[in-house]
């Protein structure tokens, strides 16, 4: 009943059918896998957000939502910016070498323009949103030598006014800086990268 010729045809036909079946199954799996990627609604919610900062007073903070996360915009006073230098020895990653920020914000003030700090308000430890303790000194309840910054109530991480993390706290890196750009002097676009050479 079975001889070599028959077996060879069978093996070839099994190969072809199984191969086609595998290809078909592979293609059929694609829509199922893709259906789990962010939907149009998620992408629409994650669209860039335009923020008017003309009314933001010095020393104040504004929070907007971008991709479901709080984004802080802090208008820093000249004193606040100056104080950053004094903290270089106390923070864990003073040059932001290990932290996440666009290249145009990888500088001393971690911002495009020194005055306006833009941060993702999510602690890099376990995802809590830190509290703003912008004022220096005892008024923030952080002790007399506090120079202003953020404090995460979950596990006690501390960040300075450039979002840089203090040494010896649980958070491993500085607060993230999201991609952002200046549409005009008083309007920010969160989620769109600053084009090179602009602003």
């Amino acid at each position, binding site marked *: 009943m079975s001889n070599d010729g028959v077996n060879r045809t069978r093996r070839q036909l099994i190969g072809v059918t199984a191969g086609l*079946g595998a290809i078909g199954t592979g293609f059929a799996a694609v829509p*199922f896998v*893709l*259906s789990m*990627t962010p*939907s*149009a*609604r998620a992408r629409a919610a994650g669209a860039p957000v335009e923020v008017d900062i003309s009314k933001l007073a010095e020393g104040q903070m504004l929070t907007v939502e971008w991709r479901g996360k709080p984004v802080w915009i802090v208008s820093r006073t000249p004193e606040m910016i100056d104080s950053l230098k004094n903290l270089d020895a106390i923070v864990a990653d003073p040059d932001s070498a290990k932290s996440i920020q666009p290249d145009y914000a990888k500088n001393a003030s971690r911002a495009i323009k020194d005055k306006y700090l833009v941060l993702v308000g999510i602690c890099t430890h376990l995802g809590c949103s830190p509290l703003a303790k912008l004022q220096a000194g005892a008024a923030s309840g952080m002790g007399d030598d506090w120079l202003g910054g953020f404090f995460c109530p979950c596990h006690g991480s501390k960040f300075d006014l450039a979002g840089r993390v203090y040494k010896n706290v649980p958070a491993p890196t500085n607060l993230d800086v999201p991609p952002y750009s200046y549409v005009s002097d008083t309007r920010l676009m969160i989620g769109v990268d600053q084009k090179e050479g602009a602003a």
Partner: protein
Amino acid sequence: MQKVFDAMLGWVDARFPLIKTWEEHLSKYYAPKNFNFWYYFGSLALLVLVIQIVSGIFLTMHYKPDTQLAFASVEYIMRDVPWGWLMRYLHSTGASFFFITVYLHMLRGIMYGSYRGPRELLWLIGMAIFIALMAEAFMGYLLPWGNMSYWGAQVIISLFSAIPFGIGDILSEWIRGDFVVSDATLNRFFAFHVIAVPLALCGLVFVHIVALHKVGSNNPDGIEIKKNKGPDGLPVDGIPFHPYYTVKDIVGVAGFLIIFAAVIFFAPELGGWFLEHDNFTPANILQTPPEIVPLWYFTPYYSLLRATTEEMVTKGLLPLTIVMTILTVISVRNVLAKMAAVGIGSVVVVCLFIFEAKLWGVILMGLGVGLFAFLPWLDMSPVKSIRYKGWMFKTALIIFCIDFLVLGWLGTQPASGPNVILAQIGTILYLLFFFLMPWYTTFDKTKPVPERVTQ
């Protein structure tokens, strides 16, 4: 490579009956070699079950069982979710194809007498699957929260209120969890639809296959192949399920998928038969659609329900009961059986006068489904397969099939004028197919059944 594989297989087999299961159910399960076209539908129904479960899981990832959100979440799946439209059409088309394959699978069983001994329990498990499937389809249909979903559920749940002595109202309120179909109803239907009933379905399908492999498959000749074994102890008319029927079923699967894909990609609504136009409007508790119509797979039973008017009870069911009682009394020899027939007959007659038509409609609808379960004991023919049965059974089955389709069609039409009378005639014929079966299968002239299966 081969050695490593064998070692792994040996390791597993020492701890789990892998090879034994494989042999018992596939490579050494002997099936009759004369299966024809009708024998594809069992494996195809299993395929549809898998399609429904997989597409259902992916729909559940995006669907919201909340009256405020449900309708929008379905449209969200259709538009915003990448490939969501395909998931939904797979599921909605799969629902209809589930019934197509199951109905053809059942018709195959009726044609070739697959319900006859020793396969009565196999048939009853199949009936349980059929009823679970209907519950699954009914509850799933509420989930899109379209206007037809809502009113369809409202009407069908209200059927329970036909149960007398105040039980009905309590029962329908209990099912809904509210005084009308509401958020509570939607949520519990969701729970049943996505986990409870599918779990039961999978279990029943498993038991169905175990029972099948215990008694062995029937075949178009209705011959027990186990009775005719060769010197090697294997049935001479049998072939191993694997590879012969696995390769054959793959062809069936491919053919089925072509038709399935054609509907999904080119006509997912199928002109309103698979997805109803009125269900593209969100549920509106203030406005009933002009015609409440269940999906096509329920319409034959829906017709039975609607055909049962006051007049139908007095002029149709009453004479039917009396005639059936007399016929039974004449036919059975045992005196006790005669007395039992008179007793049951008179109780039914009295009840026909006491209870209103609404209840009888519900009972008839239940009978429309449930009577199939009695087939193993109603069919008294000495042969199993239609091939060797006489003209009476053939005629009865043809009339029943046409009747089933006509009732199905009538169920989608307005119940008025000639439609009502036609549905009433159809209802009587439907019942007679079952009720008269012991007689026409007894008196029918059968042909001799051959020793071996024919090709």
